[in-house]
């Protein structure tokens, strides 16, 4: 049990190191360095030299690499070219917004997706199942950014129910918790709806296949043979088994959620990591691009670590190994 966790942890650290190296490498594979692309021909060469020195780009590669790793470990991610602020602060401001949006969406998509998947598997080939299958394929095929635009058109421009974007201007405070919460909820509704719907479809598809698989196991017959009602058989015996692969899906949904929040944040002007990243790319703000790439990579590694550990907690067979 202990060795499983230490092994898994070591693997994650290794993966994290790979993520760092890969991001560093990506920057150096590119032709020239950031300043070649960033600065117009009339920029004085002395300025370029000074900038290169400031960012340490004149040093040999292995020194740069060492400095980069060292910086990351100490939490020093450099200075944003565009905002003239430490990258760490920029990311620290954005991260909570992304985490809030993704965790709420995750809640929606796993709750809705699981229930829908289990019900359509248990009532296989029923009208409900057929409708759910068609709808989920359609949602799965939806361009999320376009869906977001359409929701914006419908709910904020035509019906005027929800704001079209942003986080609202009600400041957080203990005395105005109510208004703050209300404003947050109103602003979060559309992003979470879009991201949650997109995810729910794939969870439902996955869950349906997983439950159908579990329904054909012998222990299901045993459970019926004991006299358990169908509700208990499905939600206790089948669900527990079928949800084991679902845990992997939770871990794997981190990349999806982060990609998704890039899309949704761009359209709903949500000040999270995704928007920071897109803006940084449009402005060629390399320190921010690198750091946010690294941060998302780390979040994904963390996600799969959590998934593996909870996998072991749910499935007694893994624990034993």
């Amino acid at each position, binding site marked *: 049990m202990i060795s499983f966790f230490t092994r898994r942890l070591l693997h994650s650290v290794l993966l994290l190191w790979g993520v760092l190296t890969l991001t560093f490498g990506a920057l150096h594979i590119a032709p020239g360095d950031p300043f070649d692309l960033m600065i117009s021909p009339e920029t004085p060469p002395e300025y370029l030299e000074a900038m290169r020195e400031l960012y340490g780009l004149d040093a040999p590669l292995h020194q740069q690499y060492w400095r980069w790793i060292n910086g990351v470990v100490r939490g020093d991610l450099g200075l944003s070219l565009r905002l003239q602020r430490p990258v760490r602060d920029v990311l620290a401001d954005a991260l909570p917004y992304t985490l809030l949006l993704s965790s709420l969406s995750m809640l929606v998509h796993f709750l809705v997706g699981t229930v829908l998947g289990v019900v359509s598997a248990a009532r296989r080939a029923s009208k409900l199942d057929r409708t759910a299958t068609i709808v989920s394929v359609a949602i799965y095929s939806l361009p999320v950014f376009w869906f977001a635009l359409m929701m914006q058109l419908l709910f904020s421009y035509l019906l005027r129910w929800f704001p079209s974007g942003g986080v609202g201007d009600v400041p957080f405070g203990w005395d105005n918790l109510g208004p703050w919460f209300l404003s947050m909820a109103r602003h979060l509704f559309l992003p979470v709806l879009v991201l949650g719907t997109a995810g729910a479809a794939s969870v439902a598809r996955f869950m349906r296949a997983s439950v159908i698989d579990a329904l054909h*196991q*012998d*222990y299901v*017959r*045993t*459970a*019926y*043979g*004991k*006299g*358990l*009602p169908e509700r208990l058989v499905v939600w206790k*015996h089948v669900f*527990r*088994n079928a949800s*084991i692969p679902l845990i992997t899906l939770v871990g794997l949904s981190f990349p999806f959620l982060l990609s998704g929040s890039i899309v949704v944040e761009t359209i709903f002007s949500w000040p999270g990591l995704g928007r920071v990243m897109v803006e940084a790319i449009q402005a060629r703000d390399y320190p921010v691009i690198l750091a946010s790439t690294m941060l998302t990579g780390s979040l994904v590694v963390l996600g799969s670590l959590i998934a593996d550990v909870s996998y072991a907690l*749910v*499935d*007694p*067979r893994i624990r*034993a190994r």
Partner: protein
Amino acid sequence: MSDSPLLRVSNLTVALHLEGGTSLPVRDVSFDVGASETVGLVGESGCGKSMTALSILRLIPKPPAEIVAGSVNLSDVDLLKLDSNGIRRVRGNRVAMIFQEPMTSLNPVYSCGEQIAEVLRLHSGLDRRRAWARAVEMLDRVQIPNAAERAREYPHQLSGGMRQRVMIAMAIACNPEVLIADEPTTALDVTIQREILALLDELQAQLGMGILHITHDLAVVSESAHRIVVMYAGQVVEEASVDQLFSAAAHPYSLGLLASRPELGARRSRLPVIEGRVPEPSQEVEGCRFRERCPFAVDRCTEEPPLLEVSNGHRARCWEFERVQREGEWPRVQ
């Protein structure tokens, strides 16, 4: 045969609706199981014996399979007429079932004790703690050493024989009147097989339950069963006490089954083979369904024989049962 049988299956017919059409894997099957009686239901795989067993508790998968006729009476209740709540109260409580694959028949994510306690909570209304205590007691009863510890273990931590004992503990937890055992020892080693059979006999002596033992292997039931029902291609072809069957089998197919048992120290170098193939459940055969493979077949066999009374409690579905009994041996292979 007891006067008022505990379990009476009469004229049970099961249809299977598949893409290719409808077939009848179980045709007009009737038999009784009395209290403290073990009935062996014997036949080769695909003859409909498992389907019969599952139909008793209505555990057959409903969309493809359907019980189209017959009744299953437990004391005076027809199980086939109960509503879904009614049949649930019978399952695991008055009639329990154990299956062939102890590896996969237990749920891998719940501990053994939990799975036994679940039945008790459901049917006996015990609370969590008392159900657990009783589950441990049950494990002890099926002769699992260190029952208290084993109860906390998961199925994958146990050997095949142990798992089957857990299945049995689960089945007898509520003192069922009838236990249906579907090939309970097929997946186990021979030595373990014997232990499990002995355990079933012992439990029957203690609890007085009727056992319906389904198997493809005559040898398995030859010692423990009181009566044997032989099935072929969805039909009961012979019903007899063990002695009657072994000394004077009246259906050629039973004779073939008996003959293809390897006997220790037998002089015969080759076991006889029943030539030909079993008709598909969907295939309609004119007359006796065994006719094409039968060495005793005569013209009359194109007419379907009913179950004929051979002697007291001995019936066979064969026009020529007297000749079969007289010759008493499957013709040798040339």
